[in-house]
């Protein structure tokens, strides 16, 4: 079930109403049943995968907590991690690894006897697997008590607002909230609706419209010129941000309406003035996950390497981050490019700071922002392309410096109005200010009405998938 579908509207109304009508003690059953229904809307049989990892991690958590022997604790943790990563490996990476094995064996004129699996990637697999791993890791580190209520633990992994695309929650934040009594609050309802509204606007009006231009260009790159290619590359950067942060907003809004606080996942990342700042603001729940469970342990374990430990930590973290996003070399290239940029920023921090002081603040900030956005957009060419060949074609198109003003090349198939509406949607997005908790009722109503009309009039009635669903 997509957040941007009419089915979700009915689902939201029914589940939220029942949530407040039912007695507190049975609400977890409602939320768990609703989450199962929500997930099974995509492919029912895959609920078994979730059930498997929930079962393993639930008991792993309890055993880790009860066990006093450090070595045994570690065995339980490893068992849990192997189960989670194993599921990921089978469903997400098996065919990719096999394909590469075929390539290598083919190089030596040998036949790869291992068959390919004809399976679909379960939706949101990387998200709920990471959330589940976060639980056992936190219990192992002693920062979180094991959850003994099986239903509540299952809800921690399956809570429908964030089940398929995050935010990847930490047990410390969300588990206690499932034990608290939630009452209907007008403040939560207002904030929740506003978040849902702005999320839908970002997705349906901005991301889907930008996507129309981007998709046309990538599908027909031969007929593009340098201007349309640069536009599409920048549009994709904004599209993926609006698509993903739109999803996070709807997730947070849906949860907030019922009184649950999910973590902030985006903090205006496209305004970042360095790549490291970008990663502090982009997909915060994932970058902090990698920071806590991968990067920091690597750097600490290799601290005797000096600066090299940081470089190594960055490389490994972003290599895995690339793989987390997708089982393809283009995602790995995307991750490695970011690790190179972060390494450069780490190694030249002092020099850049000295140079920065000699340049006027405004100019320094502007150039830093421009370089960062250009770099992020450039790396996203690999993210968007289905092969290195396609990425190469896009880069070549930019470097051809063909600035012809042919209307068909500039506006692509959908014509000038579509391009004008694309810019209009970006302009409106810049103008919109979401009311905060201090805003009056009339301001909230006006905001909701405005967003509703903008969505109906400017939105694309495509019910398109969220980009991050594929991960």
């Amino acid at each position, binding site marked *: 079930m997509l957040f941007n579908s009419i089915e979700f509207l009915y689902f939201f109304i029914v589940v939220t109403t029942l949530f*407040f009508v039912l007695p507190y003690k049975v609400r977890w059953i409602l939320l768990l049943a609703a989450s199962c229904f929500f997930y099974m809307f995509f492919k029912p049989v895959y609920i078994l995968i979730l059930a498997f990892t929930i079962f393993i991690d639930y008991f792993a958590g309890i055993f880790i907590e009860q066990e006093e022997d450090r070595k045994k604790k570690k065995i339980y943790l490893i068992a849990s991690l192997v189960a989670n990563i194993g599921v990921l490996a089978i469903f997400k990476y098996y065919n990719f690894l096999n394909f590469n094995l075929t390539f290598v064996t083919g190089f030596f004129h040998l036949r790869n006897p291992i068959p390919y699996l004809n399976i679909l990637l379960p939706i949101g697999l990387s998200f709920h697997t990471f959330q589940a791993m976060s639980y056992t890791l936190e219990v192992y580190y002693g920062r979180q008590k094991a959850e003994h209520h099986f239903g509540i633990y299952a809800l921690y992994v399956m809570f429908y607002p964030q089940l398929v695309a995050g935010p990847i929650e930490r047990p410390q934040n969300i588990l206690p909230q499932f034990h608290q*009594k939630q*009452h*209907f*609050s*007008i403040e939560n*309802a*207002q904030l929740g*609706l506003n978040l849902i509204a702005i999320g839908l606007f970002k997705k349906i009006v901005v991301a889907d419209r930008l996507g129309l231009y981007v998709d046309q260009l990538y599908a027909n790159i*031969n*007929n593009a010129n340098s201007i349309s290619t640069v536009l599409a590359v920048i549009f994709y950067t904004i599209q993926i941000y609006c698509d993903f942060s739109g999803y996070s907003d709807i997730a947070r809004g849906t949860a907030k309406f019922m009184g649950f606080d999910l973590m902030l996942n985006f903090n205006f990342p496209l305004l970042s003035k360095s790549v490291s700042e970008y990663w502090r603001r982009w997909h915060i729940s994932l970058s902090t996950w990698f920071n806590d469970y991968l990067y920091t342990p690597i750097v600490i374990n290799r601290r005797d390497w000096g600066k090299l430990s940081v470089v190594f930590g960055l490389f490994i973290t972003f290599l895995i981050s690339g793989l987390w996003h997708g089982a393809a070399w283009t995602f790995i290239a995307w991750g490695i490019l970011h690790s190179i940029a972060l390494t450069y920023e780490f190694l030249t921090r002092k020099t850049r700071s000295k140079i920065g002081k000699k340049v006027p603040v405004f100019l320094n900030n502007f150039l830093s922002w421009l370089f960062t956005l250009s770099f992020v957009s450039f790396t996203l060419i690999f993210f968007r392309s289905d092969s290195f060949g396609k990425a190469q074609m896009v880069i070549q198109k930019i470097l051809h410096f063909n600035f*012809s003003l*042919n*209307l*068909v*090349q500039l506006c692509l198939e959908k*014509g*000038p*109005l*579509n391009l004008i*509406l694309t810019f209009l949607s970006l302009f409106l997005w810049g103008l919109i200010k979401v009311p905060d908790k201090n805003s009056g*009722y*009339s301001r*909230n*109503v*006006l905001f*909701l*009405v405005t967003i*509703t*009309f903008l969505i*109906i*009039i*400017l*939105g*694309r*009635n*495509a019910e398109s998938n969220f980009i991050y669903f594929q991960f």
Partner: protein
Amino acid sequence: MQNPISSISNFKKFLKKILLPYFLLSVLIGFVFNLFFEKNIILGSYSSGAYKINRIINSNNKNEIAFFGSSRAERSFIPDSLVKDGFNYGMVGTAADVLMFCLREECKKKNKTVPIVFAFDLNGLNYGVGDISNFLYNSDYPPIRKLLGTDYKYIYNVPFLKYYGHFEIYTKYYLNNIISLTKLNNKGGAIEKNELTKANFDELVKLRLAGNTEFHNDPKLLADFLNIVDENKNRKFILVAPPYHRSVFAGFTNLNKAEEFLNSLKLHKNIVVLDFSQLPYPDKYFFDTSHLNLAGAVEFNHLLRDSLAHYIN
């Protein structure tokens, strides 16, 4: 921590202060906007499919020569170059089922005896209603419901909301009608002014040569068409096959079937077949392999005018 009673009072307050004003304001604005948009934008553009569908259902000008068909009709016929009082009802993406709908609506008009002209596509009689936005304004008209069949959704009964996702296309037609930036508009005809780059055009030719074009005859649609023809013996049905780019014929798998079909239609007394499909026009007359550009349409209309003159007074 709130108690349940405050929870209920909070909910009442939420209904009163947020939900109710939201719905009332939305309905009010939606109603006003809908009135404005339908009257000025949807019905304000001669070349939009929605306007054409509304016109074919409601107008009753007994002297008007109607030109029907798909985008090939829309982009090939310039009514003012062809007849004294004509209108081009060609609609992008539509197939023979929409053509039959239009023919039936045209034949309902009492006291009308002028010929009907329609463009014929060499891929034959197929189904395809094209863009749903063409039908939304008249979605409550029973023959439209029947035409849309399973594509008909309950939301099409809700004013304003039924246009969700389609406002752009109406605005596009409206603006094209006013400023004619990319198309030349003439009484429903919308002739492409844009030009593809040579590389782009060559790519389309290559694609056309690589793919197969096939004539398909749907017996039900044919029977439908022949019924209309037989029931309206006082009307002449002029079938025109506008030119295709030569690459179309290189990849045509059963051109003989299409020719046989056209020859079989010629046996009917009130059907006239004007086949220009294989006119050896150069590349410069084509927008793509199936559609003429402005120069091609102007040239073709000179030729067609003389042919039509034999049948239209």
